[in-house]
């Protein structure tokens, strides 16, 4: 290139697959790019244009084609909403969904994903660091959180900028397991937000809040999540904040669990859930019959279990007993 200052070539990139328009046909999703190509790069794919015209003509006659056209129109509107980038958030739910899907590892997806990630990174073979990401997404102040963590576990805890400039908390030592408990205890508020979608925990919305998930969803969760939720609810009930809707949920769930299939798991869940729900109901006899229904065990075992539980129950739930 002998020219004094070669002009930069402007390349037409497809906003959908990000490839140059001429490579769309080899891209990940040619079908989705088509409406955009018809509008913006008709000369590159003449056959597309022809197809469209013919289908337009035929649309006057057949209903089938009309529906085809409708879908293509839909696609076009979808494209438009995604075309203006940040502004196009107010589209229909389907288009939004697609938009989010289309950005692999993109920013929007990450923002929507509200989750706390706990990682353990091994350093120098036998030393390790626990990394907690995403607490800030729930409105927890990281600097305060790190201080609390440091105090609780008596280790160094600091707020560090992560690889993608996201802030995370590094805690020295392996506390990956303890930290789950700690988080559920300390930030009841944010767990509440996670479960119920309401912003803050006040007495007003505590009286009749409805969880974001139904009983069915709850049943479909893995046992870790269910235990987590029941433990959390137990913690809440200790503080005198039971949630009626959840209590009924736990009761129902406990009734439906078949202990014969996975004794350990169902026992664990049932104990916790019946415990928490009964803490609310405040009736020891209910618990007794409950256990009877639940574990058709021998009387000896039952009495031991019940004794154990009523002991615990008395200990934790003073004032709830009649």
């Amino acid at each position: 290139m002998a020219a004094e200052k070669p002009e930069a070539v402007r390349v037409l990139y497809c906003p959908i697959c990000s490839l140059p328009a001429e490579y769309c046909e080899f891209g990940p999703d040619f079908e989705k790019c088509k409406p955009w190509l018809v509008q913006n790069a008709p000369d590159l794919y003449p056959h597309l244009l022809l197809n469209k015209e013919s289908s337009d003509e035929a649309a006057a006659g057949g209903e089938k084609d009309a529906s085809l056209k409708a879908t293509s129109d839909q696609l076009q509107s979808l494209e438009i909403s995604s075309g203006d980038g940040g502004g196009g958030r107010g589209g229909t739910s389907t288009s939004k969904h697609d938009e989010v899907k289309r950005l692999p590892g993109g920013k929007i997806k990450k923002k929507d994903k509200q989750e706390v990630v706990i990682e353990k990174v091994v350093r120098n073979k036998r030393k390790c660091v626990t990394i907690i990401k995403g607490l800030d997404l729930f409105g927890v102040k990281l600097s305060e959180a790190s201080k609390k963590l440091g105090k609780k576990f008596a280790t160094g805890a600091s707020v560090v900028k992560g690889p993608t400039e996201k802030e995370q908390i590094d805690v020295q030592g392996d506390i990956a397991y303890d930290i789950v408990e700690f988080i559920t205890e300390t930030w009841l508020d944010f767990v509440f937000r996670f479960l119920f979608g309401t912003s803050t925990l006040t007495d007003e919305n505590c009286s009749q809040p409805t969880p974001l998930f139904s009983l069915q969803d709850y049943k479909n969760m893995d046992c870790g999540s269910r235990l987590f939720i029941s433990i959390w609810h137990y913690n809440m009930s200790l503080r005198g904040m039971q949630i009626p809707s959840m209590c009924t949920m736990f009761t129902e769930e406990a009734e439906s669990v078949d202990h014969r299939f996975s004794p350990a798991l169902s026992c664990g869940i049932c104990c916790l859930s019946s415990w928490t729900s009964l803490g609310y109901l405040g009736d020891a006899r209910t618990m007794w019959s409950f256990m009877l229904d639940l574990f058709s065990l021998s009387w000896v075992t039952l009495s031991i279990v019940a004794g154990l539980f009523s002991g615990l129950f008395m200990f934790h739930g003073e004032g709830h007993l009649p």
Partner: protein
Amino acid sequence: MFKKFSSEDVSSHNQVKASVQRKIRQSIAEEYPGLEPVLEDLLPKKSPLIVAKCQNHLNLVLVNNVPLFFNVRDGPYMPTLRLLHQYPHIMKKLQVDRGAIKFVLAGANIMCPGLTSPGGALDDEVLEETPVAIMAEGKQHALAIGFTKMSAKDIRTINKGIGVDNMHYLNDGLWKGASHNFMVGKDPSNCWIDGRCPHDLVGY
């Protein structure tokens, strides 16, 4: 090489010393004489130059958070495809036939027969171990950047096996990274996705 590449592969990115910056500039200028008139615009002497070190001894040269060049160990600097699309004549070109496009875009290395078949084209001046632009039959823009394993003459005579290593191709990790600007991931207005590059916004 960039088949799987994300921000997690970047182990560090640092603003480099002025002397290193000069060195990078110089080697790029030697490598791509065609780029010299616009080099000042691409790599302004004053503005900070960031080198991101990644896995596998890979270095990325970033200006304004946009990856412009990359190299492996102390190898030659190669432009990213975005840059190459803007200044297509800076590199020697090899052309593959239409059938090969699909595979190249999936990250395959370029085999000799794809270059020697009627749809392909070879620049006889290309020696081994040089970066080249991989063009495609019937397409205007480059689809990959390669690093020759044999000279063009050898490719013609041997006509078997890998002729060019595929370094960077359309829609690989680096391409997507540049699209979504994940490297430093700050300002979406720097995004290339609608066909504008940040340099257009700066205006030259």
